């Protein structure tokens, strides 16, 4: 069976690059990769996602609903949304704990979820949650590296090699930001 990863967050957080890097690392680790980004209007502060399927039996690029072995989220509310729609029973959620309030919360019409809400809901379907926070990250886009670091440390993706993720990061990051990103990647373990 293919290993399905659903990546999500808010437009502008760098989901596309995170998905591309992970897909590339998968391919270079010798896995058959099919992946897909969602684009368009949502890039303006809406929900953005990227799907990655590893394994020869996945012919289509979209992760089935309720079929993700791993939900990787860059924001807390989106972690809950991603898990609600995509997480498989017994799957894993790794999310970076930052909060971008949607309009409905800022106008006082809706509640923003707590970390406990996520743990409870994911626990109910037998899943596991791993929360990443690294205080003092200078540029929020570097939170991507923290998420990848935790994913690597937990060996959350079978067959994906840590050194390959690092190799891909070295290729895609601008030289000026590389050292700091690698430090974050390693410290998120």
């Amino acid at each position, binding site marked *: 069976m293919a290993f399905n990863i659903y990546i999500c967050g808010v437009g502008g957080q760098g989901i596309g690059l995170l998905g591309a890097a992970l897909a590339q690392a998968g391919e270079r680790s010798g896995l058959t990769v099919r*992946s897909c980004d969602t684009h368009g209007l949502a890039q303006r502060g809406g929900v953005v996602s990227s799907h990655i399927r590893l394994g020869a039996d996945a012919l289509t690029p979209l992760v089935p609903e309720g079929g993700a072995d791993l939900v990787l989220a860059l924001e807390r509310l989106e972690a809950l949304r991603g898990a609600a729609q995509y997480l498989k029973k017994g799957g894993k959620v790794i999310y970076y704990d930052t909060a971008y309030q949607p309009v409905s919360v800022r106008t006082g019409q809706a509640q923003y*979820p707590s970390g406990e809400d996520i743990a409870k809901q994911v626990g109910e379907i037998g899943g596991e949650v791993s929360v990443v926070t690294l205080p003092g990250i200078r540029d929020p886009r570097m939170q991507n590296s923290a998420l990848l670091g935790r994913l690597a440390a937990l060996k959350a993706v079978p067959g994906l090699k840590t050194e390959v993720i690092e190799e891909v990061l070295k290729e895609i990051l601008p030289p000026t930001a590389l050292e700091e990103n690698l430090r974050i990647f390693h410290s998120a373990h």
Partner: protein
Amino acid sequence: MLSLPGLMTERKGFSALAMGNHALARAMAEAGTAVVTSYPGSPTPEIADALLAPPEKDRPCHFEFAVNEKVALEMAAGASLNGHPSAVFFKSVGLNVAADSLVQLALMELPGGMVVILGDDPGANSSQNEQDNRWFARMAYIPVFEPASPSEVYAIYKEAAALARERRAPVFLRLTTHVCHARETVKFGDLPPRPDWTPRFDAANGPYVPITTAVFPLKKRALEKLRAWAGYGETSSLNTEHKAASSGEKRLGAIAAGLPALCLLETLRAAAAPVDLLKLGLTYPLPEKLILDFLRAHDEVYLLEELDRVMETEIKALAFDHGIACRLHSRRGHDALMGEMTPERARAAVAAAWPALFPAPEKRAFPAPAPRMPQMCPGCGHRSAFYAIKKALPPGAITVGDIGCHSLGFLPPYNMGEVLFSMGHSVSTASGLALNNSTRKVIAFVGDSTFFHAGMPGLVNAASRDSDITLVLLDNGTTAMTGHQSRPGNGETGDRLALFEIMEKLGVKFLRECDAYDQRKLADHLKEAMAHKGFSVIIARHPCMLKFMRERRRASPGLKVQPVHVAQGSCARHYVCAAEFACPSFIRHPDGSVTVNAELCIGDGSCMQTCPSQAIGRKK
């Protein structure tokens, strides 16, 4: 990682993990396509990213963005008249803009061949509808190729471009959102030597003027070519049967194309009984003999497609004409015509016809959290403009929006721009709303790129008729929504076209301009404009801050932004910043306090003027 300049210039073949749009750009280079044109629109803009990646002198294809899809299509057609292979690409609804010339293409001899690439958008991920452009093919006598994956996009483009040239004809390459954006490993071939293109237009290849007596012979030739495409489809490997490993008690089959065919292949592997699949890559004209043979070889066949019942209708008619006994199944109800096909939907569709094939799906209860609608970015000039305009409008005013980032103004809390048909419609729709209307003010919005795209005729009309409306032109200097492509008059092509001067020359008598951040001035202009009897225009400028900040960050890595802050002692909790001005940078805490999210705020300060208690400031 795949380097885009390398993708376009590497002379030897190689394998790489590539997105459908990028694989397509490489295919253009390998096919020797001379000219490619476009107007930006999701899901296709990444094709241009690849085409433009190498320095201009190294680009294998001439590429340019045109002012709209019709212009782009005509340019590509012109290149093909010269014998130069050409391609044009745009989003689904772009075909409506291009349609006037599109319907003539198949009537003409196009010696270079021409591929019209459609980015259809089932699910309306980034479009105002999910129109099924396969209908256009029927009207315009143009064959349709439908790849299902990046590898197929690459291979089918090359085949389609070669055939188009050989047959001196236009072809459609119909892509859908998740074919364009899918990634897989694609095996690329070598680049050909650079051809020497000389302009070979010759009127003797015509007639190229379809009037009076010329029309019928031209139409006849188009119909004959279409029949020849059908012949090609009967034997082409693009239309193939995927036989199930064994055969069951009842002989079951399915017919599908594109991504839906892959959805079926994936889902049928878990089926309790074998189902054969006829997968089509050339979907118009249909390979009738191939389909009839398939129907005769099966007891029951499921016809699965995405969006409208296009193939289904034609295959059912074909079966009727030939007295086929095979039982045909298809999707049921209106919901089936909406949204994109997924393996789960394919499975549910087939299971409705053949319940024994799959066990009932497991239910998994997990409530969805608070919705997150898209919104304008922190520092966006549109937000500042909409906030000011909303406060200045009299009761009963009607606001008409247009396509672009500013479309998002219709969402709460602004609710600005309550009508939207298509690109460039706003001025004309507003002009109509102002007829027989002496009681309600009508205000239209348009962005700068959309204004050039299709808004200008409406403006000329409103100016010459002196329509009693106010147009607010929101000028951010770019085509922001689709990824900051340049628009006429800026970017690579030269000096910025002065919108103000254009308006003046077009005869606009009431004309004002201001910075969109200057809310008081904008409100004053608006009140004055609405008091003016007749057509009035306000240009509210502010550069796209997403683009501006990206450029600044690129120029100075590690750039420190100084966010605004809320002085807790002065904040009287009006929530104007968080809920009415509604910049995403503000956080409303459960205890009622408001702070600023330093990850989001760009320090623009356009919010400061909105706070009734002057609590928002910059740290000294």
